[in-house]
């Protein structure tokens, strides 16, 4: 039996520096990477991805990715699709946090208890998507990436 490379899911957070939701995306993605699904996930650096990082772009072209965005501008999802292939899932903090105003979760620099709880909730949603993707049959992503 050949030793096939393990299927991993790439996580791309927007990391928006202006808004607390950007900080929520960072914390949620790190929680999945470090604690919830450490063996099944990697993080992709969005700034590097945008600046032309070939390693990041190649990974996202051939492996499934989950974009985690802070707001409806969806920079992480749009960048992934533009430079590699569409993410298999796109999760947006403002959609998960409906009914929870921005002012209630802290600042971009420091989340408060509610913001930290929102990051935990986001992390759980990301982990669910990771599990869903890993159970799904392998599909070709290179084709989607080739058009760019």
């Amino acid at each position, binding site marked *: 039996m050949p030793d096939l490379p393990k299927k991993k899911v790439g996580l791309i957070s*927007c*990391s*928006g*520096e202006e808004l607390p939701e950007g900080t929520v995306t960072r914390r949620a993605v790190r929680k999945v990477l470090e604690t919830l699904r450490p063996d099944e996930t990697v993080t992709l650096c969005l*700034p*590097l991805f*945008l600046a*032309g990082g070939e390693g990041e772009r190649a990974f996202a072209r051939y492996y499934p990715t989950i974009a985690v965005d802070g707001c409806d*501008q969806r920079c992480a999802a749009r960048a992934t699709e533009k430079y590699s292939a569409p993410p298999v899932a796109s999760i947006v903090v403002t959609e998960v946090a409906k009914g929870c105003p921005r002012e209630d979760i802290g600042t971009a620099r420091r989340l408060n208890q509610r913001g930290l709880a929102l990051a935990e909730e986001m992390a759980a949603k990301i982990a669910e998507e990771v599990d869903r993707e890993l159970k799904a049959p392998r599909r070709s992503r290179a084709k989607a990436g080739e058009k760019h």
Partner: protein
Amino acid sequence: MSGERKKVPVAACSGIGKSLGAAAREAAHILTEDLRPDQAKVVALALLVMGDEEAGREVAGREAVAIDGCKLECAAKGLACAGAAKVRKVAVFDVVRRHRGLKPEGVCDLNEDGLTLAKAAAEEAAKAIDEIDPEGRHA
């Protein structure tokens, strides 16, 4: 400078994989919230590079400050691509060399050394802001 003062745009790398990227992000917040709140403003790097018009207007044709965590200098590249007239660079990987003994760790929660490094980087960035906007501190 007179009339409505425009703040100097600041972009940080915000790399999610390494402590130095996290220190760059923290430095941008220290700079714009504690050290030069009336002179500097954070511009979200992802928004800028994805072509957001408002973020682009903050940067195009102006001097800006990039705080980067690694040699790839994503923040500096993003500002240059957005049309900044000049980009002043603060490289956290160089700042850490000038502060031997610091061992920054953590990404979401930087340790004490990471926060010290972020403050040192922010102070270097503040000098760059003062060079760009020398009247700003007395306005």
